[in-house]
């Protein structure tokens, strides 16, 4: 069984995003970039499926600028077998990425496609669901547990107020939530090994996908700042303030 994992290169989880002073976007110059944390969980899950003998090959795919190769190498160091970079300097919005991934899915014919539930830059939470719809596949989003057997994926997913479990026919699309697993650290020997693993590069044109952005960003602003309040000396003062000033009691 072949598994495809889609990964995105985003601002590092620990870096605070800063709005550019001209209001056109986020300043990413000289900012540390990493694999989207949810995608890391997706790679880990795929590698575990391979280690368990359920998957035979793990293919990682990324869409974006040439530097996404680094993100793909990280995935290869985690244990993926080969990588595909869909190289483009355009701003790639979720619908475009879903179309690109659909083209890859048609070529590679995987039984399972894993993606992070959302990217921590645009926070869209769309690509997996869009891919599933375009490819006519069933989906389980926000997965916290995944079991693959007998041509089906049994997925527990996190929903408001609890969890639910679905059974999907394969091929299927699964998007990962935080609790699915804890990704491994990549080791130096594995980083060295990853350098020798195959990486293909294709262009959107070759996949026949029009990636023109559909949403125009007019401006990007700092959110309304919440000013820090006061430190109260004791609990009694706190209760008085909550009653009198804030009127929430």
């Amino acid at each position, binding site marked *: 069984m072949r598994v495809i994992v889609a990964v995105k290169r985003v601002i590092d989880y620990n870096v605070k995003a800063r709005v550019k002073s001209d209001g056109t976007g986020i300043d990413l110059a000289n900012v540390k970039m990493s694999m989207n944390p949810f995608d890391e969980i997706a790679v880990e899950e795929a590698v575990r499926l391979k280690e368990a003998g359920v998957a035979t090959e793990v293919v990682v795919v990324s869409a974006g600028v040439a530097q996404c190769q680094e993100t793909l190498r990280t995935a290869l160091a985690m244990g993926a077998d080969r990588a595909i970079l869909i190289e483009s300097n355009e701003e790639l919005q*979720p619908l475009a990425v879903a179309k690109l991934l659909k083209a890859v899915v048609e070529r590679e014919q995987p039984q399972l496609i894993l993606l992070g539930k959302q990217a921590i830059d645009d*926070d869209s939470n769309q690509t997996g*669901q869009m891919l599933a719809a375009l490819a006519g596949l069933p989906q389980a989003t926000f997965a916290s547990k995944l079991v693959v057997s007998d041509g089906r994926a049994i997925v527990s997913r996190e929903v408001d107020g609890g969890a639910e479990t679905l059974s999907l026919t394969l091929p299927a699309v699964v998007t990962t939530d935080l609790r699915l697993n804890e990704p491994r650290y990549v080791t130096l020997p594995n980083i060295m090994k990853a350098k020798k693993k195959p990486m293909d590069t294709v262009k959107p044109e070759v996949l026949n996908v029009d990636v023109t952005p559909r949403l125009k960003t007019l401006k990007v*602003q700092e959110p309304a700042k919440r000013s820090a309040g006061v430190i109260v000396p004791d609990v009694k003062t*706190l209760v008085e303030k909550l009653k009198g000033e804030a009127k929430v009691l």
Partner: protein
Amino acid sequence: MTILVLTEHDNATLNGATLNTVTAAAAISIFTGSEIHLLVVGHNAQAVAEAATKIAGVSRVLLADAPHLSDGLAENVEGTVLNLAKNYSHILFPATAYGKNVAPRIAAKLDVAQISDITAVDDSNTFARPIYAGNAIATVQSTDTIKVITVRSTGFDAAAFDAGGATIDRIDVAPDAKTSQFLSREVTKLNRPELTGASVIVSGGRGLGSGENYRKVLEPLADKLGGALGASRAAVDAGFVPNDYQVGQTGKIVAPRLYVAVGISGAIQHLAGMKDSKVIVAVNKDPEAPIFSVADYGVVNDLFTTVPELVSLLP
């Protein structure tokens, strides 16, 4: 053209996030003069449809009722919504687990961009949405003929729920896609308000040290305030409480009247989930904790003495 709002429900009662989504629809209709229709997709969901007719501003309620729609499977909801989609200029979903699951499938099939998690309407094509965990607000313009939108409920007030007088029409249902099957649901039992709808939230972090301490310290406070219980990701990862307690960028986005953060340092991703709360109280023994930068009232002291004292002093 008309605006369609997808109703979130459990086949018996209407979920409150639907009301905030209707308010977002009403904000769009100021520019378009459109009617607002509500779509209820479910099974034996007549009661939900009847409740939906009472929402202010809604002129028509459409009910798609069939056994294979009972559990909100995205593949099945997709077909039924797509049958109607061409009649609408805007299709809105609450940005809940349900809405986030289904909306992108509709957008992709219509070949339009989705606008996720909007918090403001500038005009019928232009919307504000938080990005980068709420560290920036993007104003985006859609050029597509149909706008598929998810609405962050903390960005809009709830629509009134006593007016209305909309009609109910049963509509055709798309066939079962048969590619996914619902097996079970485990609902976390709560004898408290649900986190996303609560007006008071008491939230705990790693500072509590254990699940036992979390319950011992925070439950009396939540009881006294009639509040819901929440947690930071650190507390969830440490196993103090179940996953669905998590408030933050990747958990629940909340905006209660009062948010009490206990033993929470205030990581960026937690602040993203609660900084729109009306009043924030933080209790932390570390005066440098980032949570104090957003708190209206801070107590720099040991939470194990502060919280019980607070409970005893509350009316």
